């Protein structure tokens, strides 16, 4: 018998992707792919542990694992990759710091990023 919970999770992820996402560009070196991402937790933080305070914005992106295909290969996120999000005539550049699966069935990546730059289109 099929795992009802897994089917439910897959259905919910499909709905999330259809109705709660925006297009972002996932970049690794010269390779890039446009994927649908849900913007997750976003918060402004400060690190003041070492003489100098550093302020930063953290943002999580939820992306379907099957969508992350670079140069024809399915990949997992990697620290240093970028997620580029267009907003109001600007491109917000987020750098991947870490990632994990957001569900027990490994269908969706929760990608933890930090804002590292803003470019004007």
């Amino acid at each position, binding site marked *: 018998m099929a795992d009802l919970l897994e089917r439910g999770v897959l259905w919910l992820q499909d709905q999330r992707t259809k109705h709660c996402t925006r297009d972002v560009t996932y970049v690794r070196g010269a390779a890039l792919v446009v994927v649908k991402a849900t913007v997750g937790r976003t918060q402004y933080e400060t*690190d003041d542990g*070492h003489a*100098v305070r550093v302020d930063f914005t953290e943002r999580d992106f939820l992306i379907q694992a099957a969508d992350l295909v670079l140069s024809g290969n399915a990949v997992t996120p990697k620290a240093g990759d970028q997620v580029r999000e267009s907003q109001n005539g600007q491109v917000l550049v987020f750098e991947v*710091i870490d990632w994990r699966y957001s569900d027990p069935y490994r269908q969706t990546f929760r990608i933890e990023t930090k804002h590292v*730059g803003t470019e004007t289109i």
Partner: protein
Amino acid sequence: MAVITDIADALVAQLNAATLSQPITAERHYLPRFDLPEMQTLHITVVPKGVVLALGDRSRGQGDYSLDVAVQQKFTTDDNAELDVLTNLVEEIADHFRGRRLASYPDAAWLKTEQTVLYAQEHLAELRQFTSVLTFTYRVLR
């Protein structure tokens, strides 16, 4: 100006005049605070840290003035080669000041240099940023 401020300015001037493996621009700050996107470029920040006053001789006091020098930059890869360049720069800065008086504040005698943060591991992991802090201590009799 306060002695520690004079020493900090002298330290900044000497850093900016130093010939190191890469050009640097040091700045003195009371409340150093940067946004992460700014850290793509190398930041050298001088921050007064503390003063310990004691009797020097019959007529003068002795002050030990500590100042932090933070070397910070976001890195693009986490290759050793990229971080080695910054680690080397920190050592160059430490060596540049070891045993020397400050050119524009010669009353301050170098006492010690401590690398209080060799490199901040949490910054490497969570900010992808190199952070190293040197603490210089100078002694002034006055």
